[in-house]
């Protein structure tokens, strides 16, 4: 009887601890999302955008950071919406997506570099 209570109590304690840790930390997920603050990251590295496809909610802000040793930029494929300045190493560009849709973009300096933000 005692053993059962003890193990049940332990389970409860463990469950509570797990629950506490879930709610107190908003750790960024593997693709750079920080869901609690609406800030999203895209790393520009090795002539590619990472993640290449990023899905965000309406109103989200995305920050691109250039980790390469050459400049890159972020430009909408259709010429609308997104046009960053040239980003040298470590420079950042931020864009807030106010409307739903699929936003294809690329680096107009190295056009093989393409990416997409899906806003829904």
């Amino acid at each position: 009887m005692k053993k059962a209570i003890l193990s049940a109590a332990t389970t409860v304690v463990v469950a509570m601890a797990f629950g506490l840790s879930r709610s107190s930390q908003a750790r960024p997920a593997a693709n750079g999302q920080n869901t609690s603050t609406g800030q999203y990251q895209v790393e520009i590295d090795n002539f590619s955008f990472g993640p290449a496809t990023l899905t965000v909610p309406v109103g989200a802000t995305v920050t691109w950071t250039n980790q390469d040793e050459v400049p890159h930029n972020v430009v909408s494929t259709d010429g609308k919406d997104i046009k960053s300045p040239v980003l040298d190493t470590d420079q950042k560009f931020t864009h807030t997506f106010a409307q739903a849709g699929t936003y294809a973009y690329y680096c107009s300096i190295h056009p093989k570099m393409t990416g997409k933000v899906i806003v829904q």
Partner: protein
Amino acid sequence: MRRQKEELILHNHNNDGVDRRGFLKCMAWAGTGALCVIKGGVLRSYSLSDPASLAASALDGELEFVQISDSHMGFNKAANPDVVATLQAAVDKINAAPVEPAFLLHTGDISHLSKPTEFDTVDQILKSAKAKQVFFVPGEHDVLEDNGQQYLDRYGKTAKGAGWYSFGNKGVHFIGLVNVLNLKAGGLGTLGSEQLEWLEDDVKGLSASTPIVVFAHIPLWAVYPEWGWGTEDSAQALSYLKRFGSVTVLNGHIHQTMQKVEGNITFHTATSTAFPQPQPGTAPSPGPLKVPAEQLRSLLGVTSVDYVPGKHTLAIVDSSLA
């Protein structure tokens, strides 16, 4: 080019290229009717019995110029913290060569970030070249932000459109092309229809024996499309040049030498004066390649190109800085 008295030897040979051994032979056999002339370190012998071979155009028609590329002025990362020094070293090397080139060709990425100070610095360094004339075409790093307006103001005042142009020198027709503007997502370099139409018209009236030299930043053949090393519509450009007996295409962009011959067309890419890049597919991306400091200058360099009348391929010689 001075012809010194002791270089004029009379010897019965016909019109062939003769090397140092031949020169010594020439020296030994005097008085039988040939003229040995040293031009550009290369010995040519001409038969005095055939006056046409001594025509001024044959003896003086030789043309030598030097291609430099990808100076990326303003770059300062680990692959080369001092691109000023290496560009100056390239100019010093050109100045020290036995032959002074008629002019320099810069195949683009003059600057790293299209900043005015970067262009100014390159201009300053090139002033120390003995060859005063420099022809340019832009690289993608030269047309940032303003769609190439600054580049045009500096280097393209007499050019057409986005900076393309042609000129003649010693019977060779030179064509500078721009393939770094209006690049489409997922694509390669682009010439565009306006430039292609101009090119077709530009070469229309030339005889097929006119040697052609085309220079553009991004390679005009598919070196490695995965890294953007190619030009979407180069095939159309090359179709206008197919009928010519000698076409030389000089490019930059890839920061290493590569050569391909296709019929009468020789394609050649130059090294950078700033930093090397990896060979196709040997790295995750075509970014600057860091090598041990003592190796850097062996991977940077200049390219000298020599046109000799009667020879239909131009002699292309790459020299590294170390």
